[in-house]
């Protein structure tokens, strides 16, 4: 992953480096220290805002983001924003898009957003329905891989062997079971919608490009952003970006794009690292490095990473060979 700072040193400036960026999500919100989701949301919505000239309406599922950003009397949003329920954000967004179509306001773009619980689990039916109808909505999933708002319970996005409050490891149990979890970006692609992408707050330039691209495509689009959670994952608050970066570098969080059901591109990992480098700094994986744990445990995750490297063609060296 080629990284440059966000400003004009070494690359094109990002929206996030603009002194006049929209700040769709303003300060004073109640996100935890080092919250990856708050950053991911501001980056994504700002990019959409910038691209559309502020013509966006945002629907938000229940979850951390909703709770910390809009609690009477403090609203952190500077864009039109609607929160209905935990499991219905895609449908509500469909309704917003339908209303705009009914009024002929097709320059206004609709975004639905939620955490992985809202997206992978409780709202999955509504999301699939939205994809099925190819409704004109960009859905953004902020993926922190568990139900953080309720205290870190397992979700369908929780990686195998992770500790959550509902998968607490003990002597005979190593955390969320291997062979569990689902690949929602792939599920989204299977709907044949115009655009699917994964992104990470460890690579904001790439994230912004994907959002800017997606926001003006007509039909259903899905972007999933990896947003580490210091509290839920157990790492120092300053390391949010580093952890996100390591996830990409080790292959556990492949960054790719799909169009109409086909993989069309991926962000290569220039210098792949072993998954252990990503897992070790996180308390949710600490039990994998105890005295009596077989090396095979980490191997399960390494195999997933290796599979991603191959499937999404992340490794340039392999590609060249």
């Amino acid at each position, binding site marked *: 992953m*080629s*990284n*440059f*700072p*966000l*400003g*004009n*040193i*070494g690359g094109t*400036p*990002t929206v*996030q*480096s603009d*002194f*006049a960026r929209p*700040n769709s*999500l*303003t*300060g*004073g*919100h*109640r*996100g*935890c*220290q*080092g*919250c*990856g989701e*708050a*950053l991911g949301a*501001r*980056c994504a919505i700002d990019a959409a805002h910038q691209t559309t000239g502020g013509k966006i309406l945002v629907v938000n599922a229940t979850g951390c983001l909703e709770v910390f*950003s*809009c609690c*009477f*009397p*403090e*609203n*952190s*949003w*500077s*864009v039109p924003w609607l929160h209905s329920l935990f499991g219905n954000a895609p449908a509500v967004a469909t309704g917003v898009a339908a209303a705009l179509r009914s009024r002929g306001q097709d320059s206004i773009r609709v975004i639905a957003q939620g955490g992985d619980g809202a997206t992978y689990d409780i709202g999955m039916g509504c999301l699939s329905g939205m994809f099925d109808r190819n409704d004109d909505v960009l859905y953004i999933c902020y993926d922190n891989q568990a139900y953080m708002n309720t205290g870190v319970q397992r979700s369908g996005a929780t990686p195998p062997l992770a500790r959550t409050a509902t998968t607490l490891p003990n002597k005979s149990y190593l955390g969320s079971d291997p062979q569990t979890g689902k690949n929602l970006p792939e599920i989204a692609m299977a709907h044949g919608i115009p655009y699917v992408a994964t992104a990470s707050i460890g690579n*904001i330039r790439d994230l912004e490009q994907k959002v800017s691209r997606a926001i003006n495509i007509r039909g259903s689009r899905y972007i999933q952003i990896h947003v580490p959670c*210091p509290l839920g994952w157990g790492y*120092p*608050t*300053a*390391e*949010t*970006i*580093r952890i996100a*970066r390591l996830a990409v570098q080790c292959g556990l969080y492949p960054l790719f794009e799909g169009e109409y059901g086909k993989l069309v591109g991926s962000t290569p990992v220039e210098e792949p690292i072993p998954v252990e480098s990503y897992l070790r700094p996180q308390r949710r994986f600490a039990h994998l490095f105890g005295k009596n744990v077989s090396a095979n445990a980490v191997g399960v995750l390494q195999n997933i990473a290796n599979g991603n490297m191959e499937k999404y063609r992340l490794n340039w060296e392999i590609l060249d060979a």
Partner: protein
Amino acid sequence: MPKPFATVLETATSLGNNTGSWRTMRPEYVNELPPCNATCPAGENVQLWLSLAMAGKFREAWEIIMRDNPFPAIMGRVCYHSCEKTCNRGLFDGAVNINMIEKSIGDIALDSGWILPRVTSSSGKKVCVVGGGPGGLAAAYFLAKLGHHITVYEAHANPGGMMRYGVPRYRLPSKIIDAEVKRIKDLGVKIVCNKKISHLKDIINDFDAVYISIGAQVASKSDTVIKKGSCVIDAMDLFQKLEDNPADLAHFGKKVFVYGGGNTAIDAARTALRLGAESVKIIYRRTINNMPAHETEISDALMEGIEILCLRTINTVDGDQILLDKMNYDEEFGILSKTGETEVWQVDNIIFAVGQTLDTTFFDGISDILISENGAIEVDRNMMTGATGVFAGGDIVPGKRSVTNAVGHAKKAAKGIDEYLGGASEVPIVKNAVAHFKKLNTIYFKKDKRTNILRPLNLSFEEILPSYTNDEISREASRCFSCGNCFHCDNCYGHCPDNAIRKQQNGSLTVNYDHCKGCGICAAECPCGAIRMVSEEK
């Protein structure tokens, strides 16, 4: 119509929520000392002028260099550039080629005829500078800028000292020296050449202050036994002859040996080659990796066909034969010992380049001057000797000997002399902590090799090394990590989850402590280590 109560809110009403109260650590922007600046003997603000050079602001960059060093074009050619040895980028993908950028900017200044602002003030004080080498001329420069009246006495026919007589012309052309010295003359400095001051006491009463920068004049003694009739010449003598009486060297030998391992040895060897020698060998007592000479100089010499015989000392020179002792060198303990083996070579000329020592007779009759055991003049922090009003610097005082050190001494001495003459007393600057490599986040830098420049093979006395083009200057300068100082990359601003970094239209960045929760992401993601986290509880 009234909006529904509580469930519908106006935008951005959370701005009044003081989430800064959650904080236990606070981020602070720092200005740490980049290693290049920290190690520069002349105290140049390398990082600052690199940033200007990156932006294509060459004039501004030159002006910053000129604050600390009047000879960018010369220094860019002869400086030992310790800055590059400590450059943090060296631990990443190769140090920034600071020296080359300085040379190139120095040349742009000369080509563009940039001149210094005229000195308008006058202190009415007269200062004498003994020695027209880099230190003396630099002292004259700094003092003249402060409004003092300077007279420089130089023993040789031309000013420049070691710059002119210690470095061969293919590395440093005369016109460069002339041009940079002229800029100093233009400040009103009086340079009197061919005037050797033999004794300090001769002039001490004619001036308000004296700066002595006469250099180490006498060739160092080695253990080598030199029998009569041997063709031994000191490197300095060789260079001086070449400069002032080249005809003396018309019959220089074909088989030449050079003794020494510094740049002077390399210079002497390459000079011999240019004088028509067919075989030039350098004899050095330790291994090649221990040679103090620049790597590029060594590789250039090898490229030109010069041989380096390492692990040897010269035992005896007898006519056209030399007897070498083969040596052992223990790298770990730095111990050098004879192996007992010897070898004999035929020679035409042997050039000694083993250093110089101070001629202390200059100070005869001035009792307050303290001379240390190893022959250096003791000075205080203002570079003043034991004698009131007498200051000294360069090779005659303790410390490393180089053109750049001489300039550094001169700058310090000029401040000392100014203070002595009634100028404002300098508030001692508290040096910031050095920004070491581990404070950086290098993930944000792409591996990007030094901007190479072709070093053509050229066995004449014409200058070998070309300069960077303007684009190359900016490109190479852009490799600077800006260690310890914000370079406005906006990483803190863009990565703060709490919008607690404020950015103004002019790019300035500040922390909004009303919203900053103290997570530390800004500090962690700062590429240059320009933010530190400080406990709120102190």
